[in-house]
């Protein structure tokens, strides 16, 4: 009898220890990766990193200013395309078609698209925007990222709009406001915090994407301000530099990794803590 209790107790302690250890394991890797990115990336960060063009391997100095601008530019355009489209699609799901079959299908497809392989999105955009128009371009990269944002924003916007109580809608409708005004002036206003959080998380996610940009915006060693030309981004630069054979390329790749990781994490922490929203997934 005593042995029975002992084995049960032992199994309990062992299982709970294993659980605590797995949590520790997960967190240890987070800090291990962050520590390495910080330690290896910090030496590469200086004033010229932000202001100069890439230098040839083996030469001192040089920076990734063009890639920083490129990532910023492509992310902004992708946001400008993906966010309004996503919010409107989410509006339909929450305000008009809540239980319709179309809405169910859109939800189902969105949830699949959210986790669809991003490299295939790159191949798709290559086929529709790069080859027919004769070359890699910033706009193709932005469209690829916008496609990745669309389902994320759609689902978050829907969830956040649904949180607005129906009584609020009914109150505004009872005053004689048309449905679209109720949606724009009342429902959107009530959900603005949640939607902003979702949008920030989506922006953070696509700004760290590499795979869809490899065959769309490609890369460029120089400044580029034209949307129809190949454009350097931080992530594709990391890919090319880290795969390359030169030590100073690796150092700059770590610098770029530090920059993009800190931006992504800061946006995430900001979105979660300051806006107090739950995660978008």
């Amino acid at each position, binding site marked *: 009898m005593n042995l029975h209790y002992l084995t*049960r107790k032992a199994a309990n302690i062992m299982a709970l220890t294993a659980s605590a250890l797995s949590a520790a394991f997960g967190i240890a890797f987070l800090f291990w990766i962050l520590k390495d990115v910080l330690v*290896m990336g910090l030496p590469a960060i200086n004033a010229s990193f932000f202001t100069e063009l890439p230098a040839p391997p083996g030469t001192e100095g040089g920076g990734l200013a063009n890639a920083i601008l490129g990532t910023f530019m492509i992310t902004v355009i992708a946001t400008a395309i993906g966010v309004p489209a996503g919010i409107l699609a989410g509006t339909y799901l929450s305000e008009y*078609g809540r239980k319709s079959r179309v809405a169910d299908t859109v939800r189902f497809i969105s949830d*699949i698209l959210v986790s669809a392989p991003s490299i*295939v999105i790159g191949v798709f955009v290559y086929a529709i925007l790069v080859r027919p128009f004769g070359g890699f371009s910033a706009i193709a990269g932005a469209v690829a990222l916008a496609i990745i944002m669309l389902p994320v924003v759609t689902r978050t916007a829907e969830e956040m709009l649904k949180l607005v109580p129906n009584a609020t809608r009914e109150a505004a409708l009872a005053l004689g406001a048309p449905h679209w005004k109720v949606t724009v002036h009342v429902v959107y206003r009530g959900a603005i915090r949640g939607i902003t959080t979702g949008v920030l998380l989506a922006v953070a996610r696509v700004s760290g994407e590499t795979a869809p940009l490899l065959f769309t915006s490609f890369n460029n060693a120089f400044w580029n301000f034209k949307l129809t030309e190949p454009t350097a981004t931080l992530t594709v630069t990391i890919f090319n530099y880290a795969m390359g054979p030169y030590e100073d390329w690796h150092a700059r790749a770590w610098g770029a990794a530090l920059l993009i990781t800190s931006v992504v994490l800061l946006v995430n922490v900001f979105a979660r803590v300051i806006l107090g929203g739950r995660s978008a997934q």
Partner: protein
Amino acid sequence: MKLYDRHKADKAGDALFKSVSYFFALSVILLMSLIFIVLIKESWLSLKTFGFKFFVSSDWDPVNGSFGALPAVWGTVVSSLIAIVIALPVSLGIAVFLTEMAPKPLKGPIGTAIELLASIPSIIYGMWGLFVFAPLLSEYVEPFLVDYLGFIPLFRGVPMGIGMLPAGFILAIMIIPFISSVARDVFLMVPSILKESGYAVGATKWEVISRVVIPYTKSGIIGAVILGLGRALGETMAVTFVIGNSHEISLALLNPATSISATLANEFTEAVEDLYLSSLVELGLILFAITFVVLALAKLLIKRTALEGGRR
């Protein structure tokens, strides 16, 4: 009269707003169909040239124009399975810790830390795997594996730190946050009265978890795992750096291999011949189709748990 005009304007505004939002909702479906159509159209040449042979041939010879998907599909599937085998127990442990064990003030921060791990761009995992993790593996872990577990064919190969097993491991670290946060959410759906009944008849915490919580959330957990699998199958950057890009099929997991996404990332911009490009697109089509099926399955299973939650 003026009021009537305004009423008309409101009506028109309503119709416009509704149809615009309807259009964007439909655009999601349209996009998915368009992706399939374009991928099929672009891979038509390869589909026609190789037919079914594409799926079973392990040739990958750009010079002679002979292509087969088997090595890439094999690498995608095996590296993802390795990732799941490593990630599943760890993620369940994390979910158990977060829902049943962690003291209240720790729950939030640890949960957030794990979710932050999910937001790190995947290229960082890949790069870290290549520069930090691979050297450690080749120095300490893999020689040990070869020496002591080498009698199992799986643990043979060149201990370079680059290959199928390292790729699977990096993928595992990447998908742990996804699986554990879904698992945590389904664990939270277990009504506390069920758990309390368990404790009331004298069950230990582990007995409640293993005999009440886990059976109750079974299909949700399977859904979470398949969701993680979907992520792992389609992941590019975490894999490309560490898998080694070799179109050889080998049972020895330490040997370099390749995956669909790694092949695309490495070869797509170099492919000049039509057949080569078309074969690469067909690989992309296969990947898209596999993940579509896997994710659809995950979605249905998670939905079922949510529906059955109150009934069982």
